[in-house]
């Protein structure tokens, strides 16, 4: 193979958004050869009590791509060490370890996508399915001076959600944000969306 020593993967980093965690690294290049990578992890428990123990990642031991979805491996809100090595035939590189341990409580939480619909005079909201970790706080109100803002907590998997029975001619506004109990954090609110109800406003 003409390769005495296989270089270790470099530039390890974790991108984590909405509790989906992907470990990436710079690929190891050996012309006309296919490099395989193996990823392993260690939770805080292993680091403290049995530091020699590393656990193979669920999906990337081995893999050919210079990235690994480690979402299923991160099963607790503790800090994790992650390492990668390259393999070419019988040649194996040294391990490269992520410089800073990763904790899922650092994940980026984005405002949820949402769709406001009407079913007759029922105001409904459909929310982006972000997985079992996510609850949604939905705020909605009638667009008029002094209107009261209502809040509804929506559990994962409940779609679409009935918000309110509306009146003809009135306008209603809605915004939503996510909440992840496992890490005790919520996202920013989505953009506010307003809808105008068909028909003539009821006489007072």
């Amino acid at each position, binding site marked *: 193979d003409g390769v005495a020593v296989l270089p270790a993967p470099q530039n390890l980093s974790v991108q984590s958004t909405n509790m989906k965690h992907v470990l990436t690294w710079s690929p190891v290049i050996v012309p006309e050869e296919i490099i395989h990578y193996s990823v392993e992890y260690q939770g805080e*428990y292993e680091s403290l009590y049995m530091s020699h123990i590393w656990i193979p990642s669920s999906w990337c031991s081995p893999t050919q791509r210079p990235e690994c979805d480690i979402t299923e491996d991160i*099963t607790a809100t503790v800090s994790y060490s992650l390492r990668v090595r390259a393999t070419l035939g019988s040649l194996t590189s040294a391990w490269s370890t992520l410089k800073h341990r990763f904790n899922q409580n650092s994940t980026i939480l984005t405002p949820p996508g949402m769709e406001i619909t009407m079913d007759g005079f029922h105001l409904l909201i459909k929310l982006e399915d972000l997985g079992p970790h996510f609850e949604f706080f939905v705020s909605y109100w009638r667009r008029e001076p002094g209107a009261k803002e209502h809040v509804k907590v929506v559990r994962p998997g409940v779609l679409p959600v009935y918000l309110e029975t509306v009146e003809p001619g009135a306008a209603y506004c809605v915004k939503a944000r996510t909440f992840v109990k496992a890490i005790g954090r919520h996202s920013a609110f989505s953009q506010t969306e307003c809808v105008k109800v068909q028909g003539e406003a009821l006489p007072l």
Partner: protein
Amino acid sequence: QEFQFGPCRVEGVVLQKLWQAFWAMKDIVQAQDNITSVRLLRKEVLHNVSETESCHLIHALLRFYVNTVFKLYHDKAAEFGVLKSFSALANNFFVIVSKLQASQEKMFSTHESARRRFLLFYRAFKQLDRESAVTKAFGEMDILLSWMEKFYQL
């Protein structure tokens, strides 16, 4: 989704994930336990535990699991190919113990009865040879999780 052991509150642990981790290895783990006449987490340890007592008791039990049971069972977990489930439980128990530790320090009342309950468990553990004791304790985690579930609020 949080545990409320009397005055001690623990957030950030999803009980369903612990159950999933245990179910994934339950059969292979419990098949290794040949001493069916003994139960470590028996009625006298877990039944009729008062609210304030529950914080002391769960802290003592989980600390024992983290410091002893998981440590001694690790090689078997590797042998049976259940390291992932093992890690999920160990790290989440570690989170709970860490958070209970903080609550414990604020709780001045010592709970003799919680300590007596733990000692029942501990003496039963000590009466077995070490490998059998660790295997049985690890296999009884469903009893522990079931008891913990009573203190879990969705």
